[in-house]
């Protein structure tokens, strides 16, 4: 009897340790985030702070595809749709219910419910990888078309006109429940950083969980995972929904900095997200964040300096990475680091 529990205890030990390690990492990440949230607005001016909030929201978006594509192997070109849905539902709900908390809830809930329906449609149909890409891309395009054509008095949800190409102006800023005034841009930056940290922790926990490990097994070999008795459909669906929720949060944060427009659903936005993850590295969580920051900083710099067309350079970078660094920045850096360590040890 005692041997049995001992064995059980031994078996669960690595898992428990794993989760303890995750706890440690989570604490660390949150501490860094809190420090950044409190410290950054002191050293930066208002314009930089708002810009940084946009970057952070895009980082959250990048993270969502990093999970769905990088780890889950689902070639989803619809993250832009969930991002846009999150932004639009935040704006619409916040104005209609006159409460930004409702807006936040909707920005999470609407993309997740929608992705559940879409994911059921895709994964229970057993649609293959490139076809998943096409369907999700088509969904983004449908939203983009619909919202671009939604100008005029006929297209109103509650008391919010959808505004067609111009989007919904005057999105209310986040307000704490019970508080009278909207939060300052500095506080919103803080919330964005905390959201990023939380999204990162959620991804890590999911990857450490049983479902997360099965997800990776499915990415490596779906047939084998199925033969071992795992239902790949439900695991993929969970990954898909989680990714949509994170992308929706990103949309909510984005809506707090800029107006929501049909551009959020556009093909170029879709392309950007894929580029971030590809350049950062599939199969890592920090990679997509790195990739996103790198590309965003680069295109902002180029956009303001006007020396080189940003699209030209972005395209060149993407081709370069696909051909020469197909695993992306983060794994390449890791390899280089490991090589240097080995060499110094030998020498």
């Amino acid at each position, binding site marked *: 009897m005692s041997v049995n529990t001992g064995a059980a205890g031994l078996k669960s030990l690595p898992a428990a340790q794993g989760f303890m390690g995750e706890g440690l990492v989570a604490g660390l990440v949150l501490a860094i985030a809190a420090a950044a949230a409190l410290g950054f607005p002191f050293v930066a001016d208002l314009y930089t702070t708002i810009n940084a909030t946009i970057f952070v929201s895009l980082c959250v978006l990048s993270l969502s595809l990093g999970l769905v594509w990088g780890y889950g192997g689902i070639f989803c070109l619809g993250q832009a749709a969930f991002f846009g849905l999150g932004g639009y539902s935040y704006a619409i709900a916040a104005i209609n219910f006159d409460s930004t908390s409702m807006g936040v809830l909707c920005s999470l809930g609407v993309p997740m419910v929608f992705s559940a329906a879409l994911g059921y449609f895709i994964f229970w149909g*057993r649609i293959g990888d490139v076809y998943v890409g096409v369907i999700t891309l088509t969904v983004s395009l449908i939203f983009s*078309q619909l919202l671009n054509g939604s100008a005029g008095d006929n297209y109103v949800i509650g008391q919010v006109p959808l505004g067609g190409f111009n989007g919904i102006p005057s999105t209310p800023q986040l307000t704490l429940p019970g508080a009278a005034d909207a939060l300052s841009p500095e506080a919103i930056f803080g919330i964005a950083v905390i959201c990023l940290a939380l999204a990162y922790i959620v991804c890590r926990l999911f990857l450490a969980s049983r479902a997360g490990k099965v997800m990776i097994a499915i990415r490596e070999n779906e047939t084998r995972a199925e033969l071992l008795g795992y239902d790949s459909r439900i695991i993929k669906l969970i990954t898909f929904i989680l990714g949509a929720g994170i992308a929706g949060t990103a949309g909510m944060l984005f809506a707090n900095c800029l107006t929501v427009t049909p551009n959020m659903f556009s093909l170029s936005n879709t392309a950007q997200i894929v580029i971030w993850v590809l350049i950062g590295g599939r199969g890592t969580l920090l990679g997509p964040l790195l990739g996103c920051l790198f590309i965003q900083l680069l295109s902002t710099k180029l956009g303001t300096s006007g020396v080189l067309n940003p699209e030209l350079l972005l395209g060149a970078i993407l081709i370069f990475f696909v051909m020469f660094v197909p695993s992306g920045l983060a794994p390449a850096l890791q390899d280089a680091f490991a090589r240097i360590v080995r060499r110094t040890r030998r020498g």
Partner: protein
Amino acid sequence: MDYALVLIIQALSSIAMLILISIGLAIMFGMMKVINFAHGEFLMIGAYTSVMSVNAGVNFWVATFIVAPLSVAVVGLVVERLIIRYLYGRLIETMLATWGLSLLLMGAVTVIFGNTVTGISAPLGSVHIGAYSTSIYELVLIFFAAALTVGSAVFLKMTDIGLVARAAMQNPDITAVLGFDPNRIYCVTFVIGAAITGLAGALIAPLTGVSPGMGLAFVAKAFITVICAGPAVIVGSALVATTFGVVNTIVTFVATPVFGEVALLLSAIVLLRVMPNGLTSRFKRGAL
């Protein structure tokens, strides 16, 4: 009665448009499993060369049928040699690399010509149908779309070169053993696909206007059409284009153009859900 005729012409023209924007991609994807996301930019370059040549005094038909396909074929050759040939067999990598290419070409054209919309007027004037009028050029376009489809299908099915190309697609190793270099066949096929895309771009230029970003409007639709086609790409693309074109025209007629586009995209999703491997996946094997 006249109105019905106009509506039919509209449907046909919408189908022709879809066929023209996707046939080059159908050849590339169907033959080599290369999803060329820079397809829209190939169309754009075709349209640009045609407009530039016409503005420089070249005859419209010469510009469309000779200058544009040749220029885009050269672009295709360079792209195949520099990028695509290293990525054969890797579907998603090819797609991403050509996506990069698409941005690159768009940026390059913006730098050279500026981010403006130019255009040429359609030749041939218009014809009256009862109280309505339609441009003759639109009718010519329908004819060319049909001719291109039949031509490509016949070329691949009936000629020796087409046979070798299809063999290389089915089994490159055996084809190599039989004395044909698959790499060369792939290269030639890609260049032919590019040339046809250039021709299509030049053909649609008078209707759509020309701008560096014009490819964006087409690439997704072309991509969707070709993917929905399934294994028999040329015939499949034509069938899919017909379905989408009819749906688009009917819904546009009943509601608005926006809903027409949305209905087109929705029918693509439904089609892929019902037939996950494309419309022609249940055709007998070896069909083109």
